[in-house]
């Protein structure tokens, strides 16, 4: 994957093919790396999101904030650990199945799915505890304060425990506001994800990506599979969830990944995704600058709490 850095720079420089009015034209991609896998890969917008380690710290910090809120209301609360069963990065299956070893071992089954944890019940809540933790059942979310400043001005719900008003939406909502929405100008936590989805939608309609998909279909036809697009392979093969790692699935998955490698499907998608994400970064410079500052501040707070 040594070509990553080079293609990042190249795609960034060539992503200015936008029409300047929302980016309806396809960006120019002047360099496409040869890539076989997506494990460990990163994209330009990843820089504006917390890393896996930072995410874990933020989750712990939110648990601390929730516990403090519950203590204020007269309850002892131990936040559950956020389970992490996956060692692979968030982009490991961003383009679906591409790893030949995974295909040979699991077929189309995503090993992340196979390792799903069971949600253990270590204790049940009383109605009072649930109310303090999560707020009133009939809460209209439109009535919930959107940031901490607003919540503090409003003062909480009409329900009291330990002489203290329960926050609207309970301690879970309060802890969210304290970490992710302290002020009115806090950028929505899903802003970067939404930009990524916008890029993904455009990538899937991009002419270079569609051309690569066609080449993949031709390759699969030669291997004996009549399939229209990589994303539809499982459905078109008629595989159910219980079949995903069966012998037929493994045979097809191995051919699938071999064809993806033959047409450089990962490299094409990577370069095109990078170009679209660079364009979105250029279009949202001011908001993303705020995202960076707020993330840094949030991480400082989380570090103090954990």
């Amino acid at each position, binding site marked *: 994957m040594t070509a990553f850095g080079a293609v990042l720079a190249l795609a960034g420089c060539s992503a200015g093919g936008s029409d300047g009015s929302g980016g309806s034209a396809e960006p120019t991609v002047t360099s496409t790396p040869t890539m076989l896998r997506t494990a460990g890969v990163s994209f330009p917008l990843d820089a504006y999101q917390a890393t896996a380690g930072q995410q874990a710290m933020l989750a712990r910090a939110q648990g601390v904030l929730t516990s403090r809120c519950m203590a204020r209301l007269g309850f002892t609360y131990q936040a559950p650990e956020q389970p992490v069963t996956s060692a692979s990065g968030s982009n490991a299956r961003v383009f*679906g199945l591409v790893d030949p070893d995974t295909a040979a071992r699991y077929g189309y089954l995503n090993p992340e799915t196979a390792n799903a944890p069971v*949600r253990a019940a270590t204790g049940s809540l009383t109605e009072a505890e649930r109310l303090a933790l999560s707020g009133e059942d009939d809460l209209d979310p439109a009535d919930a304060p959107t940031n901490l400043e607003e919540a503090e001005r409003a003062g909480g719900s009409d329900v009291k425990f330990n002489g203290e008003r329960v926050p609207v939406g309970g301690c879970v909502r309060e802890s969210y506001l304290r970490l992710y929405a302290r002020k009115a100008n806090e950028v929505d936590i899903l802003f970067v994800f939404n930009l990524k989805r916008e890029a993904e939608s455009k990538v899937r309609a991009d002419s270079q990506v569609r051309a690569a998909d066609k080449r993949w279909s031709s390759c699969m036809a030669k291997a004996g599979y009549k399939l229209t697009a990589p994303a539809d392979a499982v459905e078109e093969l008629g595989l159910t969830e219980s079949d995903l790692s069966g012998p037929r699935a493994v045979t097809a998955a191995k051919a699938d990944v071999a064809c993806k490698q033959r047409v450089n499907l990962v490299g094409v998608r990577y370069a095109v995704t990078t170009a679209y994400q660079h364009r979105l970064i250029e279009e949202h410079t001011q908001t993303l600058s705020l995202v960076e500052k707020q993330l840094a501040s949030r991480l400082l707070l989380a570090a103090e709490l954990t």
Partner: protein
Amino acid sequence: MNGSRTVRRASALAVSLVAIGGLALGTAGPAAAADQDDGILEAGEFGLYYNSSRGGCVFDLLAGDNDFTNNDFKDRPTYVNCPGEGQTVNDNTASYWNRDTTTWYVYTDTFHEGTRGDIPAGHIGDASSTFKNEISSSYWYL
């Protein structure tokens, strides 16, 4: 993709709590258990709504779901014929409310694939106004 509806079903919130006073009358008993996919977003669940601003029907999850194509939006006794009723949940999410105590992870494709979004506990918000409706699987763990 085809697949079963859920990965695992939770039976209660995974927390440990001890009340130390101040309980209001009528709140000392055990809380009712939440039921997944009953059209009612309860405490401890993650909700995906058909419309923006938590409008219309809601798909409520306690545990992970690999494939939203097997799920339809349901109405509920207090909201009969909610907008979206009977429509597939797949690629039909316009807003979220995470009433769980943990972060939820949403993916644009089934089975943990596509682009991932992390939705912290307590988050209430809309999907993008221009690129919404593209969620196909969701989990309470990574």
